C-alpha cells in the first residue's frame, strides 16, 4: 500500500493559477534581463542589472512609491478613525449607510479623472477659490497635479480608500465590542480622550493592521492614478516599469524586466513576511 498522499486537484489548480504565472513570469523576466532570451539576447550578461541597480531613479522610485502608499494610507486611516469616532452609529443610518459604498463603485481611472477636474488649475476648487476672491486667474491657483508632492495621487487614493476603511473600522468596532470596552474604561474613571486613545485606538489598530499592510502594498504598486495625475519625475514604480517597457528603444526592455523583478521580489517578500509574522502571532496566542 502506498503511503503517498493524494494531491487535491483543487489545490493543484490553485497553485497553477497563482504560483504558476508568478513563477513563470519571474523566470522569463530573469532570463530576459540577463540577456538569455529576447530580441537583443547575446548570451548571459549582468549588464542590465548593474545598470538598474546603479541607477538612482530605481531607488528614488521605490522610496517614492513607498512614501505615496504610506501617506495615502495614513491620511485615509486618520480620516476614517476620526469619522468613525465622531459619527459612530450614524454610519449605519439613513443615506450615509448606502452612500459609503459609492466609492467602491469607482475605478482608479475614474478617480484620477475626477481629481483632474477638481484639483486642476482651472478645476472646480480653483473656480471656488475665484468665486470667494482668493485668485483672479487659473495660474494663481497652486499646482496640485503632476507635482513631486504627489497631492493628486494622495487625493485620489484617499477618496477611494477612506470610505472602505471607515466601513472596515465600523464593522471591527462592533465585532470587537469597542463601545462596551470604552464604557468600562469610562466607568473606571477614564476621560473620553483616554478611552479613545487607550481603548478604541489600540483595539481597532491591532485588528485592522493585517488588512492595512496588504492595502499598503496595493497602493505602493498603484498604476492608473499616478499615470494620470502623477509627476514625470519621480514616478511611482509601476509607471516607471511600464514606461521603460513600452519605450521605442528595445534596449530598455531588459532593464524594465530587471526593475520589475526587483519590485516583484520586494512586494512578495513583504507579503510573505507579513503572513509569516501573523502565523507566529497566532501560535504564540494559542500557547498563552
Amino acid at each position, binding site marked *: 500500500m502506498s503511503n503517498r498522499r493524494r494531491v487535491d486537484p*483543487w*489545490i493543484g*489548480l*490553485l497553485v497553477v*493559477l*497563482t504560483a504558476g*504565472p*508568478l513563477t513563470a*513570469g519571474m523566470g522569463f523576466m530573469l532570463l*530576459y534581463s540577463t540577456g538569455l*532570451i*529576447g530580441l537583443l539576447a547575446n548570451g548571459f550578461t549582468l549588464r542590465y542589472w548593474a545598470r538598474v541597480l546603479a541607477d538612482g531613479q530605481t531607488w528614488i522610485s521605490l522610496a517614492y512609491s513607498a512614501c505615496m502608499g504610506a501617506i495615502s494610507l495614513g491620511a485615509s486611516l486618520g480620516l476614517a478613525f476620526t469619522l468613525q469616532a*465622531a*459619527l459612530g452609529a*450614524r454610519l449605519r443610518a439613513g443615506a450615509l*449607510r448606502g*452612500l459609503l*459604498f*459609492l*466609492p*467602491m*463603485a469607482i*475605478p*482608479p*481611472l*475614474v*478617480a484620477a*479623472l*475626477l481629481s*483632474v*477636474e477638481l484639483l486642476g488649475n482651472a478645476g*472646480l476648487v480653483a*473656480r471656488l477659490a*475665484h468665486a470667494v476672491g482668493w485668485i483672479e486667474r487659473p495660474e494663481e491657483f497652486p499646482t496640485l497635479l503632476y507635482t513631486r508632492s504627489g497631492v493628486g495621487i494622495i487625493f485620489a487614493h484617499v477618496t477611494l480608500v477612506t470610505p*472602505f476603511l471607515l466601513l472596515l473600522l465600523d*464593522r*471591527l468596532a462592533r*465585532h470587537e465590542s469597542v463601545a462596551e470596552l470604552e464604557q468600562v474604561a469610562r466607568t473606571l474613571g477614564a476621560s473620553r480622550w483616554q478611552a479613545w486613545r487607550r481603548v478604541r485606538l489600540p483595539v481597532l489598530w491591532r485588528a*485592522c493592521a493585517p*488588512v492595512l499592510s*496588504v492595502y499598503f*502594498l*496595493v497602493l505602493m*504598486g498603484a*498604476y*492608473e492614478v499616478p499615470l494620470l495625475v502623477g509627476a514625470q519625475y519621480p514616478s511611482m*514604480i*509601476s509607471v516607471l*516599469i*511600464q514606461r521603460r*517597457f513600452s519605450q521605442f528603444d528595445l534596449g530598455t526592455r531588459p532593464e524594465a*524586466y530587471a526593475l*520589475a523583478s526587483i*519590485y516583484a521580489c520586494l*512586494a512578495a517578500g513583504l*507579503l*510573505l513576511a507579513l*503572513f509569516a509574522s*501573523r*502565523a507566529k502571532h497566532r501560535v504564540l496566542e494559542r500557547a498563552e
Partner: protein
Amino acid sequence: MMRRILAWTLCGSLLSPLILLVVLSLARHWTWPRLLPAELQARQWQDLIADASTLGPIVLRSLGIGTGVAILATALGFFSSRSVARHPRQGPLLALLHLPFAVSPVVLGVSLLYLFLRLHLAGHLAGVMLAHLIFAYAYAVILLSGFWTPKMRALEEMAVSLGAQRWQLWLEVLMPLARPLLLVCLFQAFMISWFDYALTLLIGDGQISTLTVALYQYFSSGDIRLAATCALLLLAPPLLALLMNQRLLSATVVTALEAHGG
C-alpha cells in the same frame, strides 16, 4: 447637531463625484471661472450613441470578458475554496492567493507578456481573460473560503450519512446554501475584470479595447466630456448593483476581514 452636519457633509462629498461626472457629461460650455456650465446638452451622449459602431462592440467586449471571467472564477473558486478552508496549510495558501494583488497588475502583465506572446495569447481575448482570471480566481477563493464553516462540514456529513450522492451534495445541499455568496462572488469577480486597465493594455498588446482603455484614450486626447460620459458607462453596473443589493459591494469589506482574520 454637529454630528448631523458632519453626516450630511460626508453624504455630499460621497455624492459629489457622481454629480460632477453627470454634469461633465452634459456640459456644453464650461469655461473659467464659471462654477456651473453655461449650457447643458446631450451631445456627448448622442456622440457616444452615434459612435455605437465603435463603442458598442467595446462595451459588449468588456461585458463578455467580465462575464466569462466572473463565471469561471466563481465556479473554480468555489471548489478550490473548500480545499483551502480545510487544508492544514491554509495560511501559506492564503498568502499565495494574495501574491497577485501585492505584486501589482503592471508587474504581472509585463512578466507574463513574453510567455503569452510565445503561447499566441497576447493580443487575443482569451489571453486577456486568462490574465484577469488570475486576479478574479484568487479573489473568489479568498471570499468563498469564509463559507466553509464547521457548521457547513456538519451539514455535509449529515447529508452523506443520509445517503446523498456526491453530485447531490454539491447541487442540492451546498450550492443552494452558498447561492447568496456565489452571487456576491460573481459580481465582485466581474468588477475585477470590468475595472481592469493595466493588464488589458499589456496583455491585449493594444489590440483589445475595453471600456477602461477607451476611457483612457478619450482622457489622453483631451476630451474630458467624452471621458466623463464613458466613465458613467463604466460606473453603471456597480451603481445598479448598489441600488439593487448593497451586499454585492459590502463583500469587499467582509472579504478583507475574513482573509486577514479580523
